[in-house]
């Protein structure tokens, strides 16, 4: 999508969200544009949530990663088009689940689950569908807190954002 070389892609893939270290920024879908002008890579990233405190860190981490390979990078934060959870890649969804965070579902399923109308969010510990929402706001703005009725483990659910 970005039309970048494998080298640049692997550099960007090496940077992750500090709050979800298993998820690379490429798999999160927040890297929107990479442009080489003169000898500087101008990189556009978009925030997941307006107040996401990780964005500044992510920007710094990208610059540092590029610098470690002797490359220059500048970061620009863009707001439009607004990020959606649909931009999380298949690989990203898998790493989220393995990390213990249930991946976002479609908007309809998400709404029913958050309103407590249907049990559709799978426990990341035992796989049971018998789960309940404990709080719509979890450890970070992008997550809701769930608990499994079978194994009783609490787990995070990455809320659908469209």
């Amino acid at each position, binding site marked *: 999508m970005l039309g970048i070389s494998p080298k640049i892609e692997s550099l960007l893939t090496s940077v992750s969200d500090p709050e979800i270290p298993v998820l690379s920024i490429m798999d999160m879908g927040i890297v929107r544009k990479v442009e080489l002008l003169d000898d500087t890579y101008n990189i556009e990233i978009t925030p997941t949530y*307006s*107040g996401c*405190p990780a964005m500044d860190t992510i920007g710094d981490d990208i610059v540092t990663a590029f610098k470690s390979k002797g490359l220059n990078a500048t970061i620009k934060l863009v*707001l439009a*088009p607004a990020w959606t959870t649909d931009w999380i890649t298949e690989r990203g969804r898998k790493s989220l689940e393995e990390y213990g965070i249930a991946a976002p579902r479609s908007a309809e399923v998400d709404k029913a689950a958050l309103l407590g109308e249907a049990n559709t969010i799978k426990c990341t510990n035992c796989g049971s569908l018998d789960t309940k929402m404990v*709080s719509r*706001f979890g450890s970070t703005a992008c997550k809701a*807190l769930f608990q499994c009725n079978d194994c009783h483990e609490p787990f995070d659910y990455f809320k659908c*954002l*469209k």
Partner: protein
Amino acid sequence: MLQEKLYNYLLHLGDNSMILGQRLGELCGHGPELETDIALTNISLDLFGQVRNYFQAAAQLKGGDATEDSIAMLRYEHEYRNTYLVEQPNEDFAHVIARQFFFDVYHQLVLRELMKSKNETLVAIANKSIKEVDYHVDFSSTWIKRLGDGTEVSHAKMQTAVDTLWRYSMELFKATDTEIWAAESGVGADLDKLKPIYLERVSALLEEATLQLPENTVFQYGAKTGMHSENMGFILAEFQYMQRAYPNMKW
């Protein structure tokens, strides 16, 4: 001239969210239960994130050495454009929820209008913010219903909060010169148009929550034009302290 009007409009938008965000931030570690504590501070964080977007745009318009931080923290009290509603103290959880609900419904309506603004920056900010604010409305509405239609005690506390705070709600819709300009030029929301929708939504939800809007309310106006309540000085004293005591200090 046009730039100055737009700058002022950005302050109107940003200041409400910022002062409410500051009030919610006071609850960090003091929420009635852990999940609610986290929810309220998450909402605060959303609001501050949105404020940063407004004030970064404002700083660009203003030019010179203006930054998002100087706009947020180095103005005098009468230069803040927020309403009385958001500067009201936390009191108890019912007050926190009533204040939030009265603001959220307004906030959601305004953002939906800004999504159609003639100003591209506002469209981008609104498209981003609305996704977050939809959750805020859900959160405060759910609690209004749970407490209003809950126990005798929770109902009484919720009704008291509604009675106390309702008088500050209509200021949200009393357009200042800046807001009239914004509506007429297609940059901002037309508050007159939104007011009946607001009243309908708020009434419907309160009815569902077995709560009532007080009658014969004497609505309070003035904060938006700089005549803030006594609360504002205390909020700003805490909010601005670091930047006033140690100018340009960074984390």
